[in-house]
């Protein structure tokens, strides 16, 4: 490149202030061409050449972008490019470098977000450290830009995906933590210099602190709220641990963040920005109480009921989104917070708190509507745990409300089973006064009735009816043995009689309906088999047969057959229970 040599010679003799735009463009052009052709070693030599330092100072900035682009692309071994960049970052003016690199970070190639962030953050760190005291809000600007980019990356779902880290999210998290560390130290140093924690600190320090807090809160929401934490060696775990250590270190104690921030007193969050940080705090609560990250530095003084109260608000928030990651976190947090509370200790007044009636409703929704089986099972477990923690009066009220509003036989079945456990001293220690006498009767009135009277579909309502019959039989046996008060017995028999009557009618109707259903199904199957045989003979395609019952229509014929068979068996069981109950009431009467 003879011409190039001439140009270089000319540039070497040009004083710093005489360089023109034309020169800059030419430098970028030549540089880019070299890099594109893989002549990166030459570029490096040129930049390092002692005689060229004047040129580098004047024109070098233009080479940064092509060099970074080459590193990010990873087409060839980037070792020369990296050396060239680090030389430039050390020699050029930090202010100019910062603007250039931040600009690159802000509009990085959407196809290479991860790589770009990973490449640029260490460079920006070096530049900012060179800037020293004059960096102002630059740290915040970098963090904001980087997080904006990182939030566009997909969050891995499986362990494998996280390991492969195709989009670089895990490595970005590591790079972010790396980047922020010296600035955390700076804030800490500033704090200790100015004396005790209550002493006034420099505004610059507080600005930096605010930027770091903002970063931590953002990080908690994105990616951590979405991420599945898979054990201690996951990079998200490291990221979470890092953030949880930074916050208290810069005087944002975790209890203050979790418990003493206005949740948006009143109904709505104060503003959009504030609600953002409520989500971050929900994730913080999850990391602390479920994953036990930073638990060793958390005060062990708080009353479990208070912690539960605060966390329920976060659980409520986590249940508002129907994402698996949010629901799982909500369920986990709810479970862990409940576990710390003593059984039968929550008073009835606590049910007046919004979260304490919204969360159980959400749990019911998860149990009944959510398509994911493992979440359903977890939902049921947490729902039962919630019931266990309520005291007698609270259980009584909660059960009545559930019977009235859940509209789901399965849930009603659970509630009725729990009622039985309350009445059964063997199961819960002592009989709570809320589950005997008058209080029990008021509950029984709700339990011993059928939602749609004789028209109730007993197949759908099976869980509820079976549990209620079990309870009734249990109560009759118990009352008979104890023969406590006459009036209780009389009331029980009255309730039992009217319930039995409706149930009898209902049973015979359901039996007729479902046995005809079963017959149709069998015939359909026979026809189908016949058709297949004929089709085989004639080698015709088999026509699909529609089954009449719509409720069962998305099951296979075999499954339908099983369900109907099972229903018939259950009806028999109900029948025998009804007979047994009848005997019990008559026995005492005679």
């Amino acid at each position, binding site marked *: 490149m003879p011409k190039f040599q001439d140009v270089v010679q000319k540039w070497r003799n040009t004083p710093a202030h005489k360089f023109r735009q034309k020169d800059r463009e030419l430098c970028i052009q030549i540089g880019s061409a070299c890099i594109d052709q893989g002549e990166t070693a030459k570029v490096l030599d040129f930049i390092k050449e002692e005689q060229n330092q004047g040129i580098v100072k004047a024109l070098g900035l233009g080479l940064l972008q092509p060099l970074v682009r080459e590193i990010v692309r990873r087409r060839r071994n980037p070792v020369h490019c990296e050396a060239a960049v680090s030389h430039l970052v050390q020699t050029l003016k930090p202010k100019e470098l910062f603007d250039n690199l931040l600009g690159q970070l802000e509009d990085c190639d959407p196809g290479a977000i991860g790589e770009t962030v990973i490449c640029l953050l260490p460079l920006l760190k070096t530049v900012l450290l060179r800037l020293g005291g004059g960096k102002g809000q630059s740290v915040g600007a970098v963090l904001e830009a980087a997080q904006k980019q990182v939030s566009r990356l997909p969050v891995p779902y499986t362990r494998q995906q996280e390991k492969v880290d195709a989009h670089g999210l895990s490595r970005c998290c590591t790079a972010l933590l790396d980047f922020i560390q010296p600035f955390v130290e700076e804030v800490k140093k500033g704090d200790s210099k100015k004396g005790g924690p209550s002493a006034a600190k420099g505004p610059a320090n507080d600005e930096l602190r605010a930027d770091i807090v903002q970063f931590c809160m953002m990080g908690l929401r994105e990616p951590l709220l979405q991420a599945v934490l898979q054990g201690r060696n996951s990079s998200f775990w490291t990221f979470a641990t890092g953030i949880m250590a930074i916050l208290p270190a810069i005087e944002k104690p975790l209890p203050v963040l979790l418990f003493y921030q206005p949740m948006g007193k009143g109904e709505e969050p104060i503003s959009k920005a504030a609600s953002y940080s409520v989500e971050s705090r929900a994730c913080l609560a999850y990391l602390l109480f479920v994953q036990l990250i930073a638990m060793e530095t958390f005060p062990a*003084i708080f009353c479990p009921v*208070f912690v539960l109260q605060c966390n329920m608000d976060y659980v409520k928030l986590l249940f508002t989104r129907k994402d698996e990651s949010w629901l799982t976190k909500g369920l986990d947090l709810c479970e862990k917070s409940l576990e710390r509370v003593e059984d039968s200790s929550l008073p009835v007044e606590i049910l007046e708190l919004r979260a304490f009636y919204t969360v159980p409703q959400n749990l019911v929704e998860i149990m009944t509507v959510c398509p994911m089986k493992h979440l359903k099972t977890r939902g049921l477990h947490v729902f039962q745990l919630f019931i266990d923690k309520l005291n007698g009066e609270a259980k009584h009220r909660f059960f009545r409300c559930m019977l009235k509003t859940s509209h789901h036989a399965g849930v009603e079945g659970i509630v009725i089973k729990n009622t039985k456990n309350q009445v059964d001293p063997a199961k819960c220690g002592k009989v709570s006064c809320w589950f005997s006498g008058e209080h029990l009767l008021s509950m029984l009135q709700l339990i011993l009735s059928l939602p749609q009277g004789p028209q109730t579909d007993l197949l759908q309502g099976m869980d509820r009816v079976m549990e209620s019959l079990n309870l009734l039989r249990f109560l009759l046996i118990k009352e008979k043995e104890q023969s406590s008060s006459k009036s209780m017995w009389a009331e029980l028999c009255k309730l039992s009689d009217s319930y039995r009557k409706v149930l009898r009618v209902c049973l015979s109707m359901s039996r007729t309906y479902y046995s005809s259903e079963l017959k149709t199904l069998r015939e359909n199957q026979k026809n189908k088999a016949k058709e297949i045989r004929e089709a085989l003979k004639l080698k015709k395609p088999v026509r699909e047969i529609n089954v009449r019952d719509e409720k069962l229509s998305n099951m296979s014929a075999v499954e339908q057959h099983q369900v109907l068979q099972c229903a018939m068996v259950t009806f028999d069981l109900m029948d025998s229970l009804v007979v047994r109950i009848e005997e019990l009431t008559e026995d005492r009467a005679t």
Partner: protein
Amino acid sequence: MTAEEVTSEGQTVPIVGEDITPKKDGGVLKLVKKEGTGAEMPMTGDKVFVHYVGTLLDGSKFDSSRDRGEKFNFELGKGQVIKAWDIGVATMRIGEVSQLVCKPEYAYGAAGSPPKIPPNATLVFEVELFEFHGEDVTEAEDGGIIRRILTKGEGYSKPNEGAAVEVSIEGRHDERVFDERELKFELGDGENLDLPPAVEKALLNMEKGEEALFTVKPKYGYGSTGKAKFNIPGGATLQYKIKLTTFEKAKESWEMNTDEKLEQSSIVKDKGTQYFKDGKYKQASVQYKRIISWLEHESSLKGEDEEKAKALRLAAHLNLAMCFLKIQEHSQALENCDKALELDGTNEKALFRRGESLFGLKEYERARTDFTRITVLYPANRAARAQVCVCQKHIKEQHDKDKRLYAGMFQKFADRDAKVTDTKGKEKENGDGDSMDVAENGAAEQTAA
């Protein structure tokens, strides 16, 4: 003073001290290690600042605020901390250092607190009280309303905006009682009863049966003008003693079945409309919000009921939007219009009010889109057509402003462009006055549904 020395194996901390539990069951034993200086002890609800070191009976340390290097603070007597602390710290004076030996029933009980505290553990704390002060109940935490609780209330719930309360109030200024009344009113209505904002703010933070003293800065009292009726000068700090005797707790959604919800919603809607007509937009919005909270998640509705619920929700969102427009809360108005449009995508009022909200938020382009849509869907709506023009003007003006801004940046072109934009800008300023009138008219035409 009782002192029982129990020495079991591995135990290094002697169980000694005065039994300070109300039940006298020995659950919390206190031993003063250093006497305090202050005369006063903290009151229920006070914010207290302490340092502490917690150990198990075998002497192993499980927690220490001193190691963390920051004082621990909490609100006393509210069940935020383990029982032993609520009892123990309430007996301390500033500067005092005490040892509290806490039985599991007053600490973490049979469950323990994993991973630090095993089940059924007796805990020993050495606590030093540094300072305490009344709790600040203002949202801004600017020290404007400080509470000292005299009698703790019961339950967990507090009255919310719009709730009917029964209270006794005693207001003092410099030892002079200026206002002493027993009142029944709905929160939000206090102004008409000559109550300063502080009283309502205080009540929102009180529990049933609570009695408390409030120190009120002028900002939340009668301000710089004072109150002639009570002979209060401007800039006066007031003292209020308030007792919340009781308040109406609205039946919450989960206690109602579908029919009850629909029935209550209709009642509440009428209530809201009445408030709206009286110009009480805040109270009205409270009522409409209740409808939404009741019906929003009602998924079991069918047929006629579903239609009814939908109509009620739509009306509630539309009216809420109107309320928020009236009190200039444009972003909340916008939110409700969006919700209304989710229910009915071409609703005329929803579109119009969204246009107004967007206009209020200076989003003229989006506002114009909404108004234009109305003119297409409902050609008879003249107000919308007028609004389109107004938006047009504002968009143009903003555009010109931007131009001027950039002109400043690119000095080269500034001179040439400046003349043109300046004259245009002046024209626009004149046009602005007209446009606001039209906006008002447009709003007036749309009344609450």
